[in-house]
């Protein structure tokens, strides 16, 4: 369980806070989507939820982050890494740039933990298998498509065995094929019982993946509820979030007097 309690955060070198009074709990195995307009504080919330802000990037945090009931304040990043992982947009900068094969790339995290070789080997194979990328294990990490690169980055996180994973727009720089690959990987990940917090512009990806969706605007949580309700909320476009195509289609149909459920029924 990952809990943020009364969290406000200000970056180092800046006078004003970007997150205000955030109250958020993610249960074990829960998949939570995070949406909101640009500059709303989504990325900052991801960094705070992963503990990297302030553990790695400094800044001033008030309130608390606790994981499985333990307070995380003051812990160095490598201790946080085994509890909560964070993934970013760009596959290239998430690769270490020092490995010759995908296998070694994924093995880097377990090696950094100082694990024995046998354990590193087992964790790496398991992570590759979870995401179904065993076939590229011996390829160079520099010669992958964007989608494959993102899967390798994700596998590298899984090899750390975190029980919580935060993903900051994992498909923002990917083509439709890459987005599809990552979408499948997220479903596979969800099936392992890992708790997920996913920021995403593409609400189609969240639809059907998340149980719960949070809307953030101006550094505050403005809506928090079951995924179906939030995605169907009339105010969503006002927060700069485009509803999933399923709902837009239904609305367009309804505007012309057609009932999508009725059509679906007829087709069936």
């Amino acid at each position, binding site marked *: 369980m990952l809990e943020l309690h009364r969290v406000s955060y200000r970056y180092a070198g800046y006078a004003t806070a970007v997150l205000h009074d955030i109250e958020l709990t993610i249960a074990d195995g829960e998949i939570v989507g995070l949406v909101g307009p640009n500059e709303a504080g989504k990325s900052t919330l991801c*960094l705070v939820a*992963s503990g*990297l802000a302030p*553990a*790695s*990037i400094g800044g001033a945090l008030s309130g608390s982050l606790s994981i499985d009931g333990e307070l995380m304040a003051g812990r*160095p*990043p*490598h201790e*946080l*890494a*085994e509890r909560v*992982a*964070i993934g*970013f947009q*760009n596959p290239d*900068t*998430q*690769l*270490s*740039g*020092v490995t*010759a*094969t995908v*296998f*070694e790339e994924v*093995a*880097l*995290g377990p*090696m*950094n*933990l*100082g*694990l*024995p*070789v*046998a354990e*590193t*080997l087992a964790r790496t194979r398991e992570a590759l298998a979870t995401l179904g990328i065993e076939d590229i294990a*011996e390829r160079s990490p*520099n010669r992958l498509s964007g989608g494959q690169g993102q899967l390798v*980055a994700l596998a*590298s*996180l899984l090899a*750390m065995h975190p029980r919580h994973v935060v993903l900051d727009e994992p498909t923002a720089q990917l083509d439709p094929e890459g987005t599809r690959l990552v979408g499948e990987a997220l479903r596979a990940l969800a099936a392992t019982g890992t708790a997920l917090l996913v920021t995403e512009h593409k609400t189609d990806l969240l639809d059907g993946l998340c149980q719960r969706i949070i809307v953030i605007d101006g550094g505050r949580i403005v809506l928090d509820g079951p995924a179906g309700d939030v995605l169907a909320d009339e105010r969503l476009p006002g927060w700069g979030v485009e509803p999933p195509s399923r709902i837009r289609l239904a609305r367009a149909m309804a505007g012309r007097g057609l009932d999508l459920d009725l059509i679906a029924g007829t087709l069936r």
Partner: protein
Amino acid sequence: MSEADVAFLQRLAPPTPSSYHRLNPFTKALAAVAESIAAFVIGGYVGPLAIFGLAVLPAAAMAGVLRRLVRVSVVLTLPIAISVVLISVFTRAGSTVLFTVGPFDATVEGVDFAGQVLVRLITLSTAIGLFGLTTEPRAFVFDLERRGLSPQLAFAATATLEAIPAMLERAKVIQAAQRARGLDTEGRIADRLRGVLPLVGPVVLSSLTEVEERTLALEVRAFGRRGRRHLLWTMPEATWEAPLRWVLLAVLVVIVAARLTGAWPAIP
């Protein structure tokens, strides 16, 4: 770990096609440094040429990289060799003047000096070039880490290998773009000086923007943890290599000491 696992991990190590390649990277590096230093300390023609002909060339032939070594060394030595010849020939104070160009006299002593510097440079560049052509940089750095180099410094060394081609690519793209916009890299010195910042700025800035994201991506893989790592594969090392290195080192120390104290006369 099963035998198959061990074999799999060893397959990740770079290939070693010849018996010279199979020497441990540390042994090859020490040989290159010892040969270079010895060539400078002994001086004259006979010493450096003996090292070049009796140590570097046979080893290169054994490794099957003779032609590539010659090519690389010529590329690396040519610019500096031209400078050496032009400058030494014309500016050494000497009694026997061969001919005069403007205020510059070409002397026999100058030709002799240029010759000596050239044989040293050839020995140096081929000794180090041979090391480079027969050693995968990653294997060298991993081997140093096995011997106690900190994992963080090992990362810095290997990451440079990736960073340089990426930056060259950037420099090329940016330079081409700026030429297209009419930036002068030909004209007067003042114009060229003014050209430095617009070129340096974008190259450096675009590289530095990657630092932040890569830092965070490494933090979540426990990069900041201090302590040894268990490496997945190691480079081979024959039992006689350590004694060989001590012998090399001892010979070098004797040569340096003998030359410094003047115990040995200068060899022509």
